[in-house]
């Protein structure tokens, strides 16, 4: 792991909060990038290769077959910026058939004022392999006016499984534009967990997933919008292959003057496809906005697509039920919000789980 006395320590606490463990306890490998510098790119297993994408492109000629293939560089001004002016990003390659027990961790960290961090990430999970990647993106407390643009291309080969857990912990002055494309081959499984609990100036992303035959894509998203945050988060899933399926679940809490737009789009194109969107929002302020936009598009008669969306406040009846068991009003509200945001994420590092709980407790004060 990085040894740099000058830097040592100042980011440690912040990256721990997004699940990055410098001791690498129960991790299969690590990638750490601060601003434009790669501080760690290390695998603990033979079956996994972890590099920065600049070096990986030099090392492997075949990688160009994956470069800008799941996301187009011409998608928008942000992908264009990454194409022209890239600052590394991770390359994670899992060999065929490898069942990786412990998660791989990655952290992309912004530490300097006015930084533009433009990363391009590639994950390739070869046939029959299984892996969990936990990636935390964060900024040093107090950093202003910074940009993070992250292009991520993920390739899940036949019968492979990728669980991708992303935690965003930015700051009220950070501008964030992830651009993600996921291609799932036959019988492949993609599970995405996304958690964003802290204020962010402006975050907008809508990862696009392309499902092959019998492929499965599951999305779970937890958003806690506070202060002046602007979050616009969605997922677009193309059910291209026969018998492919998806489930998209999101929980959004909005308070203060925040604005959260939660989108979900399922496009069914082949026989026996099945998709469901579930979008629930909890309003904690009159000045906040939750805008839920679930969309379904069937291009085949053999489609089974559905959605449910509900936005509301904490019910007085639920609060009083908990009060009649001895909690005060504030404690009751906090327990309810915690329950609301409680989605089951397997293999979530304990520190991360505690961090999320702590976050809810702190942010519920005064509601």
């Amino acid at each position, binding site marked *: 792991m990085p040894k740099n006395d000058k830097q040592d320590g100042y980011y440690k606490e912040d990256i721990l909060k997004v699940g990055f463990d410098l001791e690498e306890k129960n991790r299969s490998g690590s990638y750490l990038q601060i601003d434009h510098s790669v501080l760690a790119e290390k695998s603990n297993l033979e079956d996994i290769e972890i590099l920065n994408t600049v070096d990986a492109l030099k090392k492997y000629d075949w990688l160009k077959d994956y470069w800008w293939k799941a996301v187009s560089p011409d998608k928008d001004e942000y992908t264009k910026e990454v194409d022209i002016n890239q600052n590394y990003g991770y390359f994670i390659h899992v060999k065929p058939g490898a069942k990786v027990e412990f998660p791989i961790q990655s952290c992309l960290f912004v530490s300097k004022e006015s930084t533009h961090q433009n990363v391009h990430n590639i994950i390739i999970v070869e046939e029959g392999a299984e892996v969990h990647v936990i990636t935390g993106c964060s900024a040093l407390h107090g950093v202003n006016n910074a940009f993070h643009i992250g292009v991520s291309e993920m390739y899940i080969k036949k019968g492979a499984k990728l669980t991708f857990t992303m935690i965003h912990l930015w700051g009220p002055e950070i501008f964030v534009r992830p651009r993600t494309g996921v291609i799932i081959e036959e019988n492949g499984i993609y599970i995405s967990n996304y958690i964003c609990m802290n204020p962010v100036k402006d975050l907008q992303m809508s990862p696009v997933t392309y499902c092959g035959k019998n492929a499965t894509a599951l999305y779970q998203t937890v958003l806690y919008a506070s202060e002046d945050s602007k979050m616009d988060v969605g997922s677009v899933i193309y059910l291209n292959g026969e018998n492919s399926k998806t489930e998209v679940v999101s929980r959004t809490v909005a308070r203060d003057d925040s604005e959260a737009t939660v989108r979900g789009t399922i496009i069914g194109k082949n026989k026996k496809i099945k998709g469901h969107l579930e979008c629930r929002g909890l309003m904690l302020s009159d000045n906040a906005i939750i805008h839920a936009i679930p969309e379904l598009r069937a291009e085949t008669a053999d489609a089974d697509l559905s959605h449910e969306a509900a936005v509301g406040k904490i019910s007085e009846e639920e609060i009083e039920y908990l009060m*009649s068991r001895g909690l005060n009003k504030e404690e009751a509200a906090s327990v309810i919000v915690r329950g609301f945001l409680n989605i089951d994420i397997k293999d979530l590092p304990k520190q991360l789980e505690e961090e999320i709980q702590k976050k809810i407790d702190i942010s519920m004060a005064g509601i």
Partner: protein
Amino acid sequence: MVIKLKYSLEIRNLAVDVDGQHVLKDVNLMIEKGETHVLLGPNGSGKTTLLLSILGLSRYKVVRGEIIFKGRNIVDLPTDERVKMGIGIAFQNPPIIRGISLNTMLNVCMGKKTTEITDDAVKLAKELNFSEDFLTRDVNYGFSGGEIKRSEIMQLIAQQPDFIMFDEPDSGVDIENMELIGKIIGKLLERDLIPSRRKKMGLIITHLATILDYINADRAHVMLKGKIACSGYPKEILDGIRKNGYEKCIRTCQEQ
């Protein structure tokens, strides 16, 4: 001089409005240390309103009168402070809370900060004929009528209040579970102890009076149109209602 506060629940001239309607008009009731009372009466007479007013839920506005618990008038206290003083309730229709497990409710009742399933919780589940798995279910979500009753009673055992209210604990319960519920409520209210050793107080709303097969209550009250119209020995009152119906029973009662 030491002033000893009276260990009892006393309701004096209580009037309560619900959503602008005068539901309770002038209720007087005294439950002494160790006593369990039964509340009878037709639908809409104000029985549940009385319980939820004692609990202090926000919809129930006390417009007149006092509720004195352990020597203190509690009408201005929020629900959680009343609960901390030792008041507890088994609701008839508790809400579903998604994302909050029955186990979390038990931990709340026991004042435990953890989210883990504790040994105490497992023991309680067993006692109420629930599997350990059941504890992980969202509270009241998809519970049957009988499961709701048992879950409410289980939470009360975890909580151990001094004054416990039950809102129709015997409705919608099958015969097999009726016996279980009856026995557990009896134990919770210390009816298995000799009268002089009992401390816990109880107030039970019942329609069917099935619960009285398992619990010897000390007194019964009949509510009608927001007032306690008649009080007496449970058996006599019940016999009267069964024979002559509520109206006539009350008339006889008032004539006496």
